[in-house]
């Protein structure tokens, strides 16, 4: 360690999400992609400052033809055990994502790719199954690059647990599942900034009161997702401040058409008309959210500013649609929400219940633990649920993952027209053509309504005054970007 014990800087981050597994390919959540990116390093990442993808472990990339992408790795990138990172490690990481059964949650990131080959030590060739113009969205900030040699020597479980050597700015010191993760600065890493904290502790703190109190007591230095009713506590503080970021996480109410009554498009549309989104944003989110009129909003790729709102708050229309769908006397449904996973999630869905009831959709609210809820969503077992999808900078991968036929069972929606448009957008390497096709696909999705798209949050982070930190809209906690003031 370069820093002396007395000068050691320590930053603790309070997060709301789960620390579920030490396998860097074992869970797909924004915060984990970010944390594993800090340990293992990524090929590339999205830069909100530059408005595009930039290299991390890769120097640059090129598109040889519609199916062939070449990545050139930076030379001299070292794993934490001192060995050099080469193309074979990228091939190995692809293998772990695509073939390892314990990494099934990350297969969405690799499913578009047919093969990954090492051309030489610093050149990687990726061949896609079909032309995929948005391929970088499936790779950048998502693929953690781990060591093939360590894996070959110890095997997956032992390597992940006791030899987690990456090439990122932090080495993994401790991982207590469901509780905390401790990172230690990898001295000499080119990704560190002057002032990056020596030690980073990430603590799971689902209660917002707990996060705020810990921040104000100096127990933690960054508190994620401060709900609107607690903003004043931080505003009044002399030791911390609020730092907002416009999230690119789209919040929606998903309706699984494989189950009744959600097989009926009119029932789904009735739900979208029944919910007073403006009222919820005003009263429960205190204006800290932007309404979505389709799957995405301003600032996200292919957003159409001319898109007219389709689903206004209109209970009468909702009742009419419900009657036309064959439910003139109403229908009973079950709504599932996580608790404290998203800002005011339980409160928001509680507010939706009487709104839905008022149009005849008698709703029973369920509040399972996030782990249970997420496992069931991934298996397609949940009929009607409140959910967020993070990292939607380019909506292609997210909208494919959730709504394209056969990609994931989460919603079980299927539309030939939508599938055709999504395939066409991936095949379009001309940007204008791709944007136009994506917009068409999103219009179809809005009309078919397998989900009611709600809003994107303005996420408020509580940050101690002795820390400089600008949270990212995609929710990646890249702690090397935080700097400590002396």
């Amino acid at each position, binding site marked *: 360690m370069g820093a002396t014990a007395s000068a050691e800087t320590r930053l603790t981050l309070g997060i709301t999400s789960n620390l579920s597994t030490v396998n860097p390919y074992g869970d797909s959540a924004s915060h984990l992609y970010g944390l594993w990116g800090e340990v293992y390093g990524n090929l590339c990442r999205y830069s909100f400052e530059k408005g595009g993808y930039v290299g991390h472990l890769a120097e640059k990339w090129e598109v040889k033809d519609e199916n062939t992408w070449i990545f050139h790795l930076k030379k001299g990138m070292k794993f934490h055990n001192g060995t050099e990172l080469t193309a074979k490690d990228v091939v190995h990481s692809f293998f772990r994502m695509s073939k390892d059964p314990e990494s099934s949650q990350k297969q969405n990131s690799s499913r578009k790719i047919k093969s990954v080959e090492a051309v030489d030590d610093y050149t990687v060739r990726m061949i896609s199954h079909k032309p995929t113009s948005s391929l970088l969205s499936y790779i950048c900030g998502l693929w953690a690059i781990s060591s093939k040699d360590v894996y070959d020597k110890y095997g997956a479980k032992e390597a992940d647990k006791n030899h987690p050597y990456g090439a990122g700015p932090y080495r993994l010191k401790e991982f207590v599942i469901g509780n905390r993760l401790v990172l230690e600065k990898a001295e000499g890493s080119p990704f560190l900034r002057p002032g990056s904290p020596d030690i980073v502790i990430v603590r799971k703190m689902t209660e917002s009161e707990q996060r705020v109190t810990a921040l104000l007591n100096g127990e933690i230095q960054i508190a994620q997702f401060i709900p609107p009713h607690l903003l004043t506590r931080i505003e009044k503080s002399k030791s911390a401040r609020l730092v907002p970021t416009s999230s690119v996480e789209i919040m929606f109410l998903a309706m699984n058409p494989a189950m009744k009554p959600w097989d009926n498009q009119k029932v789904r549309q009735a739900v979208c008309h029944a919910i007073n989104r403006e009222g919820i944003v005003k009263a429960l989110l205190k204006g800290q959210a932007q309404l979505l009129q389709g799957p995405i909003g301003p600032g996200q790729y292919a957003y159409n500013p001319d898109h007219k709102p389709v689903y206004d708050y209109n209970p009468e229309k909702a009742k009419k649609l419900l009657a036309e769908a064959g439910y003139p006397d109403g229908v009973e449904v079950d709504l599932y929400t996580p608790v404290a996973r998203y800002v005011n999630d*339980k409160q928001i869905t*509680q507010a939706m219940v009487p709104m839905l009831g008022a149009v005849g959709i008698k709703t029973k609210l*369920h509040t399972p633990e996030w782990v249970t809820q997420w496992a069931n969503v991934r298996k397609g077992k949940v009929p009607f649920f409140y959910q967020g999808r993070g990292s939607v900078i380019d909506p292609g991968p997210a909208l494919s993952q959730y709504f394209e036929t056969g990609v994931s069972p989460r919603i079980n929606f299927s539309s030939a027209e939508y599938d055709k448009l999504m395939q066409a957008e991936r095949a379009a390497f001309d940007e204008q053509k791709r944007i136009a096709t994506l917009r068409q696909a999103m219009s179809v999705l809005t009309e078919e309504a397998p989900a009611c798209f709600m809003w994107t949050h303005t996420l408020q982070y509580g940050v101690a005054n002795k820390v400089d930190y600008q949270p990212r809209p995609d929710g990646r906690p890249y702690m090397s970007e935080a700097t400590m003031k002396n």
Partner: protein
Amino acid sequence: MKVKICLGGAVVALLISVGVLAPVITPYDPNQQDLLAALQAPDYFAGKFFLGTDHVGRDILSRIIYGARISLVIASTVVLVSGIVGVGFGAISGYFGGRTDFAIQKAVEVVWAFPPLLLAIAILAFMGQGLGILIIALVAQRWIPYCRVARGQTLSLRARDFVTAARSLGASHGRIIGRHILPNLLQAAIVIGTFAMASAIISEASLSFLGLGVPPEIPTWGSMLADGREHISTSWWLALFPGLCIFMTVLGINLLGDGLRDILDPRLKRASSGVT
């Protein structure tokens, strides 16, 4: 002793009255939301909401009144079902003895080995949320104290002269248990029941607090407390009033239980009068 019974009895009487009269005395529907009136502080005299409103603008007083009803229904059902099951098995176990006694007491030991709240959480996690399931989860272990006490007393009663007399007159086992044993187990069951009622209310509140109790649309003191926890530094009334209700109710029922035990338990009565 009388003070305990009076105070405890008053609390229980108030709980029963509020529970029974809930639809008449609540100012609002407990689930009626007014988002624009969310988190209004209590206004004890002039306001629209006597104890304030919660995070989605529901009247806290109305929810507390309905919460009393839920607590009462759950606690009394749990006590009744646990009592019937526990006293029934205890009487059978003690009366027949032998293999029957051995089998029932082994079952008792197995169930008793689980921490009660953990067992309830496991049942709810497995079977899902619902009023009926919650009652099953709470009964799962609460019948044990009845069973153990009833068995002990039955072992003593079955050797008494009036039981021998009934047997010699040709009375069936069912008749002996029903007519001669069970009435003598009633006093102990009542004392256990009062304590079980208090513990059932706390368990229900704990499970609702953890989000495992009844479904969220049913107002309970435990779920109100859980909702209030998220606002405790800014809107204290959300957690304070349901918390006070749980505290007062459990205290009242325990006082009543203490008083009844003093009257009904002969050993305690003798001890308190200096007779050993």
